[in-house]
């Protein structure tokens, strides 16, 4: 086996593994793995309706953001 192929294989496989590791650590840092039971139980209810709910919450959030932005823009000058 030539040296360059060995180097290439080691580099590529380690890099791919590291990508997965980085994604996992990102998930942990943002709190997505804090709730163990959610993986087992929560996913059972993860259907279309819940997607709809999530979208609704997202809209609420956006509306709130827009509102606070408007308030800032039209607020009296300090």
């Amino acid at each position, binding site marked *: 086996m030539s*040296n360059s192929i*060995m180097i290439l294989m080691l580099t590529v496989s*380690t890099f791919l593994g590291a990508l997965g590791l980085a994604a996992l650590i990102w998930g*942990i840092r943002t709190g997505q793995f*804090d709730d163990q039971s*959610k993986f087992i*139980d929560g996913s059972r*209810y993860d259907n279309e309706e819940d997607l709809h709910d999530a979208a609704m919450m997202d809209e609420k959030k956006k509306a709130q953001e827009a509102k606070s932005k408007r308030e800032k823009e039209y607020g009296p000058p300090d």
Partner: protein
Amino acid sequence: MADVKCTHCGLIFDESAMIIEKEGDKTLFFCCHGCQGVYHLLSSEGLDTFYSKLGKTTLTPPRNQNFEDLEKFNLDGFRNKYVKVNKDGLNEVSLIIEGIHCSACVWLNEKVLHRTDGIIEATINYTNNKAKVVWDNDKVKLSRIIEVIRSISYDAFAYDPALQEVRALKIRRDYYSRILVAIFGMMNIMWIAVAQYAGYFTGIEQEHKNILNVAEFVLATPVLFYSGWVFFRGAYFGYKNRMINMDVLVAAGATLAYLYSIYAMITQRGEVYFDSVVMIITFVLVGKYLEVLGKKHAVDTLDLLTSTIPTEIVVIKNNQKNLVALENVEVGDIIEVKAGEKIVIDGIIKEGAASFDESSLTGESLPLLKLIGDNILSGSICLDSTIRYEATKDSSSSLLHSIVTLLEDSITKKPKIEQLANSISGYFSVIILLIAAATFISWYYLSDIGFERSLIISISVIVIACPCALGLATPMSTLMGISLAAKRGILFKEASNLETLAKCDIAALDKTGTLTEGKPKVIEANFLKEFDISLLYSLVSNSNHPISKGIKNYIAQNFENFKELKLGDINSIQAKGISATYNGQKIFGGNNALMIDNGIATKNITENLVFNFAVNDGLVASFELKDTPKDGAKEMIGSLKSLGLKVVMLTGDHEKSAKNIASELGIDDIKWGLLPAGKAEVIDDLHKQNKKVIMVGDGINDSIALAKSDIAIAMGNGADIAINVSDVVLLNENVEKIAEALQISKRTYKAIKENLALSIIYNVIAIPLAVAGFVYPLVSALSMSLSSLIVVGNSIRIKRLKFKK
């Protein structure tokens, strides 16, 4: 009559006792109006898919929810304490949701919160039922949010997450990331190491070997410096406190192997030991992480306790009721307390009389009647009527507060047990470094083998003696011990607790709630005349007194056809009993004193508790009740004694009931009539006799003694504060677990000693060989790994420990 299931809560009752309703072609059954109300609310909201998600889980039927105190959630004192305003101007609160049985409940709560206008975010943790809610205060008030949760028959308490939770969570995430990196590095290095070892035995080109070496170096570096950072930091703190701890050894061993490997890699001579580096770090790190997990559990339970202390109380000023923040209450203020509320400030009763449950303070299982002029203590609960009392202390010097402070003190002052193994291995590593240096110098100057060879010999000394086995001896055994204990429902908060527990020689046990059920049970029932059992059932259902509950349970177990009747004129007579009317009949239930007051003849003379039931001036039934020892308590005492421990029982109860229980359980040494501080004094006295003491308890009243003892064991159903100060928590009420915990700790301690002996023998043989130059570094690394494997194997044997059941 057939048994049917309640459509809402899923509990099974007799059909005759149910509320029946027709909806289309379906027949609905409800066990109470609460269930009916919640069912209709959910179906009108289109949330009835909840029931299909619920499956076979049963719910608690909704209690009569009280919506009166909702206003307190909007008060400034409450807002300042629990509500945060985030940078978008939104409000944020952390809640503990009570009444969650399963994941469907979580789903339902999230759903209704999401549908409430003005709530921007609502997430509920499936594991610990804690919720985070973000809302817009212009659109919805917190009181409305709590009301929404209560309307579907759950309840919510606010808590302050800043205290401990945020920190515990951060530590856990941190460890998680570090372990992942370590495991990733280890797994990959293992594969490369397979090629390395194969090459060592069958021959390998130096060029290929170099490539593999560099790949291992790349993988090992983040493991040592990122995952191993914990040990470097620990070693630094140890150095600052002039202590050579386990962290120093791990850090030194790993770093030395790492540095030598870099040297071997660059000079292209000899073997690299990057695989040993990552293995040392990974194994020891996982052991440390399990300790962190245990601590997080304790934090979850503590939050519930602080959340039930009210932030504001009703103070009467100029005949008007005002809600005043706890801190602003002054000595001399008149405070009003309703039935069921917790007293938070000490005082003297000025108006009214009521029974008080002081069980959390004194352990006394029976309520005490307090009249005008009597002292009431904070931490007790007012059971049956509304009273007004004058504050004699402010909130910071009241008993409840002082107990909490006392506990905080004793937790921080609790001596850290220095582990023998660590101090030995601390000296050990210093000695090894000295021996290695001496070996290098003597080979270099006294023989003609040259610098290169001398260095390799001295490094093989360090590697062969790398305190891996010694370092693993304790954590591997405790890891096995802790996981075995956890499987059996015993939670050790720290690994060192196992060792301390094994060394204890006396066990102090609390009586009420620990050895006994703490709930009186009917031991004898005399039915004198025919009567409707539903009458008695309805009467006792109207009281929260433990005796009433005992009677209620007795009826539920022994009778079938009873239902709750609508009684009139319900009147609870303090410390005596209850009376009521039904269809013109007068009914009484209570002790002998109540019967005498009403001119009813009784004949019971017994040392047990008595409950008489009379209809229209004639005694129809009488019951004797007794607080019974828990199942297995006697066997547990027996096995504690056979393990060589002395047993002493501590109780706040009076002499007679203490002696009764003690003789039943076979305990010779008892101390009765103890206040919380008294129990702690007993522990102190034992300490003065140079005894190591285990304290087992469950209530707030035990918590000072728990904190003072060497090892505190708390029952999992006990007061949260007791659980928090304890080192060991029994997850269920089974008392036999106390003996099991001891058995596990003794077995683990034995394994630790064996492991230490093994690793010392190994070093005594191997080090001289290495010093003499007979061992190459690769062989020394292999034998080092082998010694670790032996230690691990010996530790795994702990799992084969046999228990009685």
